[in-house]
């Protein structure tokens, strides 16, 4: 009898562990709940305020230096729970990127940003993220890679760099490590525009996003080597704005 109850307990514990792995740890920050997906995290007090701190879990999704594109920009993020149908609207969040020391890999750049239109099973999503480490370096090409768009799973950063004219999905922004950065993304149909630190005009635009998934969850992303802090996430759904066609001249 006793043996049986222990057995049951073990089964129950096993189920609990399974559910833990499948659904991830949940953390509450003010009135928002976040589900950790292949990241480790906690709610801490940081510079006097409660923030969500996350780092990519390299055990959950291993990184391979010989297969960089395949093993970065994966679904390692904190999902905002309860909003599964973000399609058009505004995502605003304050983020702060620190580098892990020692660095797990020399190419780290403080990767931090936002996922949106994330499928329930994480099989597809859109993302805009920053590389704050290169936002103010003296190498202009690196500076021009301070902002990155990608669409999971078919259009990650290297694929985009190879298959489109330089700068199609990357841009510059005056960002840096170890300081709060306010990112606002305006999503409207196929277009996403990003605003940094309350600048009046978007400093980055994706005219035609590449994902087929039109609605889904919103998440907060970090990649290898980043200790990411997030606060004041605001997501506002809006109705589709119809744009007027503008005549375009390419090449110059």
């Amino acid at each position, binding site marked *: 009898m006793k043996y049986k109850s222990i057995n049951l307990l073990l089964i129950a514990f096993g189920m609990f562990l399974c559910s833990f792995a499948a659904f991830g740890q949940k953390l509450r920050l003010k009135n928002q709940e976040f589900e950790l997906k292949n990241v480790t995290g906690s709610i801490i007090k940081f510079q006097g305020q409660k923030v969500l701190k996350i780092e990519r879990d390299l055990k959950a999704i291993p990184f391979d230096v010989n297969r960089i594109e395949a093993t970065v920009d994966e679904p390692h993020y904190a999902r905002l729970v309860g909003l599964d149908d973000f399609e058009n609207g505004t995502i605003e969040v304050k983020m702060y990127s620190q580098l892990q020391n020692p660095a797990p890999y020399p190419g780290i750049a403080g990767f931090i940003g936002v996922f949106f239109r994330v499928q329930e099973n994480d099989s597809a999503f859109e993302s805009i993220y920053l590389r704050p480490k290169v936002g103010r370096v003296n*190498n202009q*090409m690196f500076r*021009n890679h301070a902002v990155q768009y990608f669409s999971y799973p078919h259009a990650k950063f290297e694929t985009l760099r190879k298959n489109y004219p330089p700068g199609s*999905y990357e841009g510059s922004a*005056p960002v840096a490590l170890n300081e709060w950065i306010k990112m606002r993304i305006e999503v409207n149909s196929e277009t996403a525009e990003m605003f940094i630190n309350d600048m009046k005009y*978007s*400093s980055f635009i994706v*005219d035609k996003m590449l994902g087929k998934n039109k609605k889904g969850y919103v998440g907060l992303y970090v990649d290898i080597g980043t200790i990411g802090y997030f606060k004041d996430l605001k997501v506002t759904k809006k109705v589709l704005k119809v744009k007027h066609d503008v005549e375009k001249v*390419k090449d*110059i």
Partner: protein
Amino acid sequence: MNKLLFILAIILSINSNAQTIKLDSNRLEAVNVSMSIEKLMGNKVVKVIKDSSVKEVDEPTFVKIKGINFKNGTIEVKVLSMLLKNAPDFARGFIGVAFRINDSNTKYESIYLRPVNARVDDQVRRNHSIQYYSYPDYKFDRLRKESPERYESYADMEMNKWITIRIEIKDAQAKLFINKNQQPSLVVNDLKHSANASGAIALWVDIGTEGYFKDVKIINQ
């Protein structure tokens, strides 16, 4: 040691020669452009339009400021770009500055803007809002082909509005600051005519631009 540095700083600040350039026609020389001194929105400005006889782009089409031999320091100027009525469809409001120009106008460095690009929907064009080139061997198309993303960048700016350009030049490096931005919008580390070149400064435009310039300040170091 601190005292020494302080004294050194004073000496340097005395030596550095800040100059506000008066925009008189006898101080200015039009090279392949038409030039006039006008009043625009209550300000005395220089209006510059490229000669239609010059068909190539990124050419010495500028107003040269006489009597300056500039190597290192700061060039600051306010520019305003309008499109001419007959501007071709690829006009972008090209406007900027040329520096370290030799006497015969056959060698110089330049940084210019394409204000039309800054707010368009195409990120590639936005990333081409600012351009460095070096005359005659490294015009925009060669640089773009051989070293993409290295000599171009983005900053927010507008047509028909005054834009402050400040270029800080030291040896082989040039940094461009737009308006009141604290961070440079373009950094070039290998000016093609080497760290030692020096020469004149000019107000530059290209095809389709009706360009206005005012408040030219030069600090020679």
